[in-house]
């Protein structure tokens, strides 16, 4: 049997396995009453990155080495790594909430903008990969780093962007509550 035919066979077997997986009852329950606006307005862990970054800054604990308290410095750094991992878990939760919002949006999406779903897929995939990679790196241990100012500036920049995003969401929410027809324009118009 040639390799291409063998690949076909393996693909067919993979399809059977995927079929079984796809037909499994889903463990996650959907949130039918999920309010898109409310979910998007919830507090964001991402905005606290500057504090976490500062905690990971080696200069924060480096003075302990100078005072010959290396053991204490290591304990402190270990604890801060744990905090970073917790922070990462919260980012993951925020990400999952956004995915849930995006699913709710997707089932209501009009045809013209259906391709936005593809963009979201790519982002979701990138996030999931980065998240898994970073979690393992944190578990393996953080080393001192430089260039904190640059990163801190980036974090401030992101914080500013998030604020702008929230303002825009609020505007959309207010506008749709003032003009309830705006969201119903396409209803029954399939």
């Amino acid at each position, binding site marked *: 049997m040639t390799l291409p035919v063998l690949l076909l066979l393996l*693909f067919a077997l993979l399809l059977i396995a995927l079929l079984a997986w796809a037909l499994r009852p889903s463990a996650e329950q959907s949130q039918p009453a999920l309010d898109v606006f409310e979910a998007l307005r919830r507090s964001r862990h*991402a905005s606290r990155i500057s504090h976490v970054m500062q905690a990971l800054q080696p200069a924060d604990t480096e003075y302990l080495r100078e005072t010959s308290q290396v053991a204490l410095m290591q304990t402190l750094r270990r604890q801060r790594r744990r905090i970073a991992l917790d922070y990462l878990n919260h980012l993951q939760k925020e990400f999952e909430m956004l995915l849930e919002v995006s699913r709710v949006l997707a089932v209501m999406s009009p045809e013209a903008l259906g391709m*936005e779903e593809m963009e979201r897929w790519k982002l979701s995939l990138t996030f999931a990969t980065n998240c898994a990679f970073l979690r393992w790196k944190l578990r393996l241990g953080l080393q001192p780093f430089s260039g904190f100012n640059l990163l801190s500036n980036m974090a401030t920049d992101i914080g500013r962007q998030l604020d702008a995003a929230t303002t825009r969401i609020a505007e959309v929410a207010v506008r749709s509550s003032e003009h309830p027809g705006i969201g119903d324009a396409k209803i029954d118009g399939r």
Partner: protein
Amino acid sequence: MVESLQLQAAAWALTTALELGLFVQLIRHRVNKDYPQFLVYLVSAFFQSLALAALYRTGNLDKMTVWKIAWLTQGLVVTMRALAMVELNRRVLSRYIGIWALARRLLLGVAVAVIAYDLLLSKGQWQWLILNGVRGLELAMAAVIVTMLLFARYYRVPVNLLQRALAVGLCLYSTFYVINYSIFERVLRQYAVLWNFLGIFAFIASLLVWINAANRYAESTEVAPLPAISPELYGKLSSEVNARLLLLNRQLIQFLHVQERGQ
């Protein structure tokens, strides 16, 4: 050998009886109203069985002509099955017009890629082109059905019992055909009768799954279509979600940079 051929003939008769039984169930429970293409596929499979039985009994025609007619009828049945599969995908996903807009592009891409890969294996020989074309179409159907079910699972689109049964039956039969064809044609030619019998058995299993689902089918189980929001509102909300996801990604990338700079 004679016993196995008798067994195969009995399985063939059973298949025809089950096809008739399924036909009656589809009409009785008015499944044909929602899935007319599936009914057409079933009727074509039924007539193919009759045509092949008549063809093999006559014995006047030369082998090559019989082979061509047999594969022509097979091509027609596979085409009908492909149309039934398209109908199933549309029934499951087309209520969600945005998802359907994305899904149909993706499903078409999957189908074209699988068929193209399979046709490449025929190396320009027309006999292999037909045989591999049918196999490619079968594999593409299975891939499209699985992709559709994964899509439905990701977006939590409800898939009712009949739709699941149709998907399972079509997918299992197609994948079994691919496995059967690939192994039997290339490796286990001496077990031809056994493999043919297993092929019929796979179809019988699919028919039983469909009969069971058709028997329980009620038109009321169909979910009412969901309203779509306006493109303007969707665009704004969607952009916000994408922006938030993008920002989260950037947070993680910053973290990664921190790690890399520290090492």
